[in-house]
């Protein structure tokens, strides 16, 4: 299994990378939605995408929408500190398969992975 971490925050990228590493999941991290789209345009594919919502250049909602328009069928799990229903709904409607409130923990990540399997 492979994963893409999309988060502009270096602390979160480091933690999510380690979480995935410890579960034996090969992973790559990028800093915003545009980089997530670009990496897919370069031909790379991932089983799982952990997508932050608030990012510069291209946020998680736009990136998710764009990836779905491109035909990307990977599991996209939104991971954010946002907790208001309206904000999360917009994110989900962009094309998420799952949403988890930060901080991401081992048990939350396992519940996301179970949905892939």
């Amino acid at each position: 299994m492979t994963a893409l971490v999309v988060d502009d925050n270096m602390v979160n990228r480091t933690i999510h990378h380690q979480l995935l590493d410890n579960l034996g999941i090969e992973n790559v991290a990028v800093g915003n939605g545009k980089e997530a789209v670009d990496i897919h345009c370069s031909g790379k594919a991932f089983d799982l995408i952990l997508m932050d919502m608030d990012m510069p250049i291209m946020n998680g909602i736009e990136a998710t929408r764009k990836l779905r328009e491109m035909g990307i069928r990977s599991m996209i799990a939104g991971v954010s500190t946002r907790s208001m229903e309206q904000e999360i709904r917009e994110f989900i409607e962009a094309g998420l398969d799952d949403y988890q409130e930060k901080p991401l923990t081992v048990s939350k990540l396992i519940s996301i992975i179970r949905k892939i399997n």
Partner: protein
Amino acid sequence: MLGLDADQLRADMNRLLAFLFHQGILDEQFLQLQQLQDENSPNFVSEVVNIYFHESEKLLRNLRSLLTMDRELLSFDKIGIHLNQFIGSSSSIGAQRVRNICVAFRAASDNNNRTGCLRSLEVLEHEHCILKNKLHELFQIEQQILLAAAVRYPVLN
């Protein structure tokens, strides 16, 4: 005695951790972070915490700079963006009190309340300083434990 030093240090570390949790300075997310540390990444927690302080100090400087601008130039949107970052990374390392202050700060910013923001910034800087000092103390004790264990069980070539 060397053995007692390591045991005493461990007791000191546990007391400090208990204090940090009891005071709400840290929450269980910090324990999650510790569980990610293993023999392949033995310094994971201190590395992440160092990244956190490097990033958060930049954010504090930016927030201070934004709030000392003239009213006409003050951008609450930019303040909100910085605070979202701060909330995210503070949550991720289990810095509960800092996170909660950032949430209150964000509420003041959402209401375009400059005075409230300035007050929040003062409290945030203070809490950030406490967190940094306490975590520095924690990592120092951890280092001392490792040294004490090395002295007790030297590697013989």
